[in-house]
């Protein structure tokens, strides 16, 4: 195969694989959410949908849900602004899809004498791109709230825009520490920087060098994704369903997809920035190298598999964490959310930057 054709094939393959992975995970996550919630609450959860009598622990429920969404009436309320009402779900889903692009899901591989990064686009602004894109999600919620022409969505949209703006600040600031430690905003370099060891024992993962940054980022991410305990924009006890009250059928399912895709992408980002991305602890290119000095040789193909497997495992864990936290922690009150965002998270993230800078300066001397 010649040059440009090969490049295009590689690009398409990367997009297809990662896209399929993320959307597959979205489908699975809807099931995990329902089943996990049920088991946590001593219920059985979905177990009815069957294909030829095979029930498979309710695994076909996402399929049934999708079919149901497709065949429901696509209804536009009288008071809604027709165009914006229809645009809102797209505004909600598109940023989540865009964010997939910069996440490295494996190390560079050599195929037919070429080095290929297992990442859709290795931008030199990496995380900034991620911020830029995730900043757009707020429009989906706000537009949905405004264009529905109804009170509950409007309140939900208002809450969400204030909340997202507040937490975006501390989310960005909590990552500055990571940039400072790994001296890059490029995702691939941050992951590569996490391959070393800290004090000769711990893997040099972001969570070990930036523990406070990790907690702040995780909390801010939950707030950005509008997940419990920050799901006030759709707090059903007060706002029916918040910004997507007036939505039905496929548009509603787009909001749902956006939410779960945010979870998956968020999990991937946390895994990449704070848990070494595709780095497998103590695994080097040639094989395992344990702190004691003992080494185990591993064939390159297995190394690649282990690394991609490590990334998938980390993503799965953090995606599950979203669900786990949702069914554990009750929702905050709105003033509590704002207080946490501005009076706790913001000073702490500034403190984190200051402390990181100080330590780096002392280490350099």
């Amino acid at each position, binding site marked *: 195969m010649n040059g440009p054709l090969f490049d295009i094939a590689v690009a398409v393959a990367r997009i297809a694989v990662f896209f399929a992975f993320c959307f597959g995970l979205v489908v699975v996550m809807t099931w995990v959410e329902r089943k996990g919630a049920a088991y946590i609450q001593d219920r059985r959860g979905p177990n009815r949908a069957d294909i030829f009598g095979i029930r498979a622990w309710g695994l076909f429920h996402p399929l049934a849900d999708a079919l149901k969404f497709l065949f429901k009436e696509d209804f536009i309320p009288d008071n809604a602004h027709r165009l914006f009402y229809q645009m809102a779900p797209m505004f909600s889903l598109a940023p989540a899809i865009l964010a997939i692009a910069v996440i490295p899901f494996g190390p560079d591989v050599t195929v037919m004498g070429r080095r290929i990064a297992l990442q859709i686009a290795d931008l030199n*602004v990496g995380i900034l791109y991620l911020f*830029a894109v995730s*900043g757009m999600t*707020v429009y989906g919620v706000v537009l949905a709230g*405004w264009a529905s022409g109804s009170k509950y969505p409007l309140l939900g949209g208002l809450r969400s825009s204030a909340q997202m*703006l507040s937490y*975006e600040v501390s989310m960005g600031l909590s990552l500055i520490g990571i940039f400072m430690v790994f001296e890059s905003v490029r995702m691939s370099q941050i992951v590569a920087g996490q391959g070393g060891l800290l004090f000769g024992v711990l893997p040099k993962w972001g969570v070990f060098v930036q523990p406070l940054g990790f907690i702040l980022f995780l909390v801010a991410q939950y707030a950005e994704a509008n997940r419990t305990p920050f799901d006030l924009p759709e707090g059903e006890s007060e706002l029916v369903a918040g910004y997507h009250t007036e939505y039905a059928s496929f548009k509603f399912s787009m909001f749902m997809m956006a939410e779960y895709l945010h979870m998956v992408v968020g999990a991937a980002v946390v895994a990449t920035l704070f848990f070494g991305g595709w780095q497998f602890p103590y695994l080097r290119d040639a094989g395992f190298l344990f702190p004691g000095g003992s080494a185990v040789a591993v064939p390159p193909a297995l190394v690649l598999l282990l690394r991609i497997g490590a990334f998938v495992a980390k993503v799965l864990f953090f995606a599950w964490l979203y669900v786990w936290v949702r069914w554990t922690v009750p929702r905050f009150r709105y003033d509590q959310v704002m207080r946490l965002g501005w009076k706790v998270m913001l000073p702490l993230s500034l403190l984190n930057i200051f402390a990181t800078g100080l330590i780096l300066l002392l280490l350099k001397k």
Partner: protein
Amino acid sequence: METVLFILFGAIAVCGAVMVVTRKSPMASALYLILTLFAVAALFVLRQAHFLAAVQVIVYAGAVVVLFVFVIMLINVPEDRLPVERATTTRVLGVIAAGIFILESAVLARRFWMPKGPAAEVGTVETVGRALFTDYLLAFEITSVLLLAAVIGAIALAKRKT
């Protein structure tokens, strides 16, 4: 290829900007503003200034316009009760200003028409950061003081008991 994209995004940016000022509904204006900002960001990307593009989107589309939208939502004037503007003088002046601007840009374009080859590394994280903290340090610090003053002013206004 690059020229085609440049013309495409440039056209989107200009059309979006025109729509921002001509739309009646404020929400539509805000959305066209986002479109324009994105198109300008795309132009930055075409000149290899990824950092500028990202910051443009983060700051303007991600924060400033959200604030606009927030205000539009809070005020929430129905479309049939929007004030009708009859400022003919302003319009005439606007057209004249636009004419002068187009002339100016035509003159400028003759001199700086589409530099060939890859652009110099001006819009990356490193170069922008270095420039901010060395050559433009004073301006940078003064801006931060200005912003601080604005924050304090906003708090003072919000806390005023009237």
